[in-house]
């Protein structure tokens, strides 16, 4: 493989990885506090993409207003999801919570299918993200460069919230010991709502960038990115935000590079991530950044 091609794939991998990273953060934050895989998390991507699209097409808003609005709406939907599907089950066995999450995911997908229809719709990509930079033999869509930058900015903002503010302190406390945090007089429902708000907004940002990258959106577009981002979160060590970001980048890079180096295996691309997951769970279940579990 020539150097240019390699460089091109490297950039693609980092860009894809940044999208996984943003979604993985939501999984890891919710898992850290509630010990729950939020199966419906991936579908928030789809909601954000549709919201952004209708903002531009139906209400003819400019993209820089429509997209942030879509992100906020998805964040609110995340809180609603927690209130409706997870909050009544806080004291229930874990299996019930997971089944509720799967149900919520199917409900969102099929509601979208009924309301919008299953035909893929073209996503209006703003020209701002749509032009191609040519550097020598390299052809790079400018979005490919912006998405890691946007991701890094968002992650820095998130790290500030988690490590420098009071709410962030409460979040970290809740993920260490849920009951003790409640005893300290912290309103856990608000902390959980904030967690869902942040996680869902980040997933929404990723969803909109995803829709610009692959500009055909359909009600099931969030499923595969959702699973892969969860795997990224496990690779990084679930419950750890920096780990989730690293895992996301790692998974994106591996996926693109393996397909580029071994084109014969391209068909197996979706299976590949799950094999990584099984490998990680077998040999290092706590992931890259996770602390060893003391039993």
């Amino acid at each position, binding site marked *: 493989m020539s150097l240019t091609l390699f460089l091109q794939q490297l950039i693609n991998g980092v860009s894809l990885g940044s999208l996984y990273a943003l979604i993985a953060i939501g999984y890891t934050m919710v*898992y850290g506090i509630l*010990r*729950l*895989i939020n199966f419906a998390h991936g579908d928030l991507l789809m909601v954000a993409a549709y919201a952004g699209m209708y903002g531009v097409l139906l209400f003819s808003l400019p993209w820089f207003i429509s997209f942030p609005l879509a992100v906020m709406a998805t964040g609110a939907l995340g809180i609603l999801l927690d209130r409706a*599907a997870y909050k*009544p*089950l806080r004291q*229930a066995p*874990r*299996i*019930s919570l*997971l*089944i*509720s999450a*799967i*149900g*919520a995911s*199917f*409900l969102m997908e*099929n*509601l979208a*299918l*009924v309301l919008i229809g*299953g035909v893929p719709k073209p996503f209006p990509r703003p020209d701002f993200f749509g032009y191609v930079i040519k550097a020598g033999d390299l052809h790079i869509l400018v979005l490919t460069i912006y998405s890691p930058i946007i991701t890094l900015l968002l992650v820095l903002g998130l790290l500030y919230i988690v490590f420098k503010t009071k709410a962030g302190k409460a979040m970290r406390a809740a993920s260490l010991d849920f009951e003790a945090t409640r005893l300290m007089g912290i309103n856990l429902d608000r902390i959980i709502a904030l967690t869902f708000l942040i996680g869902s907004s980040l997933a929404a940002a990723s969803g909109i960038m995803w829709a610009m990258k692959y500009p055909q959106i359909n009600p099931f577009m969030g499923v595969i990115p959702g*699973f892969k981002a*969860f*795997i990224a979160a*496990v690779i990084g060590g679930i419950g750890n935000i920096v780990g989730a970001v690293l895992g996301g980048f790692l998974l994106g890079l591996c996926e693109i590079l393996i397909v580029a180096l071994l084109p014969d295996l391209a*068909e*197996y691309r*979706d*299976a590949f*991530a*799950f*094999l990584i*997951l*099984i490998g990680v*769970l*077998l040999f290092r*279940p706590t992931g890259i950044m996770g602390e060893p579990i003391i039993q």
Partner: protein
Amino acid sequence: MSEKLKFWLNVASLVLLFGVLFLFSRYGSGYQIRILNNIAIFITLAVSYNLVNGVCGLLHLGPNGFIAIGAYTSALLSMTPAEKQLNFIIEHAIWPINVIQVPFVVSLIAAGVAAASVAFLISFPVLRVRGDYLAIVTLGFGEVIRVLCNAAQSVTNGPLGLKGLQAHTNLWWSWGVATLAVAAIQRLINSNYGLAMKAIREDETAARAMGVDPFQRLMLAFLISAFFSGIAGGLLAHLITTISPGLFTFLLTFNLLIMIVVGGLGSTTGSIIGAVLFAWGGEALRIVERPMEIGPFTIPGIPGMRMVIFSLILMLVILFVRKGIMGRSEFSWDALASKFAGWRRTQTPP
């Protein structure tokens, strides 16, 4: 109630069941027979799925993988070499698939054995983890099987699938297998092994302290569940006569999950009720996807509405009636007899 009486009651209800089936096979319409076949296959699938999810308490999300393995194994073994030649247009089937042909019953057993062997292989990574991790690993396994079915063109014929299978599955096959599966799994649950599985579900550490080896017991449940799922997959393939990877998506697992949750996680009786309700309700709900005329108004049918209703039912059951219909209790003649006695007492004046 004596054991002997219960035995004869069981025999009588089986005779009654197969008598009704005989009447349907004679006089029922094709549609009715089709639904009865569906019900039997769903019962087999739900009861074997419940063994892992309800009795052992593991959220296993990959039965669609086992069903796919069973369906493909059985289909490939029962087709004649000429039929295979017709199906595999893009790439020829590899040896020995292209020449082999066995009777239907052998292909069904092979389907079960194939699914159980794969279950044995993946049980090593899967049973090392619990809870959410187990859910995501098994889900990944189901997904990997589907991807493999799509990609292995010379074995499964890829996305084109296999067409024109002989419709071997009839009421006797499907209900025979269902009866066998229910009897076998129920015996397992009531045995010492079943007690150990329930103990693991309630408290794994305590069970371990009592000398139960979780890995062995869970592996047994996993293998038996996969075995019957594989056979049911074979029956399904020979019922609908066309299979393709798109049939075995996560949606299939989701449907099974609805059945066992609505019926009551951990109850075989509940799984049977759930399967019957699902098969019947799925047909009844077709109304919402068809245009309806009420007086002068026409309500257009909404395609996809059934899945919305199913997801809502699943969520409502899990949120508000977590026990489902049966909870963890089972049907028994004793309970029925005492109910009946209680009813008699209210009828007779003191």
